[in-house]
């Protein structure tokens, strides 16, 4: 068993040194970037037109594939000592795309709800956004 692990470590080190892992990592990140962007676009269309997309392609399966590849890319990034740090940058167009997409979906979700429940939905939504913001952007101050 130790022999197999050593072989694997040797193999990984070899590919890390000759740059093959960097090549795979870069391709994977590019694939994931386009994949998640495509997934969000399809999800938006599906929200507007239920079954229009899912009648042809399973969004759940697509997300599982993207999630597994992300996990693989994370391991690869760890081997290559690459950190994928999210930074707050108002100039990044993707921040604004995400912003409008989020509020578009929120608008769609409340459009036909009873008026009395809308404040509750908005409150839950803001709370979830705040939670995600803390998770992704808050610096770890426990150490």
């Amino acid at each position, binding site marked *: 068993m130790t022999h197999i692990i050593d072989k694997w470590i040797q193999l990984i080190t070899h590919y890390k040194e*000759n*740059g*093959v892992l*960097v*090549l795979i*990592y*870069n*391709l994977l*990140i*590019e*694939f994931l*970037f*386009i994949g998640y962007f495509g997934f969000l676009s399809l999800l938006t269309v599906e929200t*507007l*037109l*239920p*079954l*229009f*997309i899912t*009648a*042809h*392609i399973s969004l759940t399966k697509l997300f599982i594939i993207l999630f597994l590849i992300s996990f693989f890319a994370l391991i690869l990034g760890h081997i*290559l000592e*690459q950190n994928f740090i999210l930074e707050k940058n108002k100039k990044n167009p993707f921040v604004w795309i995400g912003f409008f997409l989020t509020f578009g979906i929120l608008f*769609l979700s409340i*459009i*036909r709800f009873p008026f009395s429940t809308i404040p509750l939905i908005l409150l839950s939504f803001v709370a979830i956004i705040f939670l995600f913001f803390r998770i992704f952007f808050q610096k770890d101050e426990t150490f």
Partner: protein
Amino acid sequence: MLQLPPIPSHLQKIYSTLRIIFYLSLCIFIYIFTVQLFFPTFSFTYNFRVSNSHNTLSSPHSDQNTPAGNGKIMQHGSLITSASLSGLFSSFAIDLALEKKSNLVETIYAEIHRTYQSFLLPLGDPIDAFPKENLYKIDDTYYVLQNETLYPFISTSAFLSRYEESFAREETNNFLSTHTLSEEFIGYRIGSLVSFADGVFIITSEHDIRPFGNAETFLALGYHFENVIPASEEEIGIYKRGRIILPGAIHPNGTLLFDKDTDIYYLIDQGFKRPVTNNDYLEFLKEKQIPIFVSSLESSKKASCTLEPGIFGRSFSCTGSINTLSAEFGNDFILSIQTNELPIELQILDVSFHTEKNKNTVLFTLSQIKQRLLSRFGIQQ
């Protein structure tokens, strides 16, 4: 945009090649996906060995209306099944496989026509009178007297969905004290469409309602949003909610059909389509709703193909054109498989419907998208 680690110079060429391959594959995928979105192919199947939820064709039956879930077709007999889908289709393809123990035949004949399943129901007795009851109005509540018991209507709107206002005789409260008053309420006319909260329901009996799965199902069954009556919680509360109505459902009791070729109105009732011959009742029904349009001429149009055997003689296939079948008068494709030689036993039956790649199909898909978007925002055209 993405801050990625640098690629060693000796791998630059491979990296560029792989990126080109990746982007080319992406373009091909997007192209295929878009073509599939605008010119979809819908496939339906029935496995006669296992009866399960994967069977997307409706339960097969013989031309004598006996169940044929075992796939057996008698000599000179036929097996009938159906698939429900809305849209414009140009061609169909049928593939079937025979059981090992089945007789081998040289050809099998297939026929398809497009209609609503309810329009194929047997003809029932004509409705030649307005259904009349002993009706009363006391204060602002309407009642029907049945077996010396007064049944109150849940609302004026419910009463008016069944009868003319003039049918009710005004009475005083003394009339109430001389009769037994039922705690059971009378609701809307069976077949009425009602809406509550975000859902649309159809009244299927005096005690049951069924919700529509979605707006597409509602429209695919030929119903009109103009016929939907907004109902209150109290009005909906007297009914038990039944199964969701999905595409392929047969129109429930009380549905009004209008055959534009014969000018006959039919009311669906207990497995029959009954012509409405009473003028007063017909005028009343027409005033309350837009009927579902059917066409005896279009329904009788058939597309056919002859299934030829494959190499081993057990699998058969054929394709045919369905351009001539109108999409306006029904979304149920009724498929009939016939054999004239020997009795046969089917194992699997697959049917697929293809759309033609032309401007009309694109315009039709775009109009459907527009319609769905508008209905998504509660705007009805």
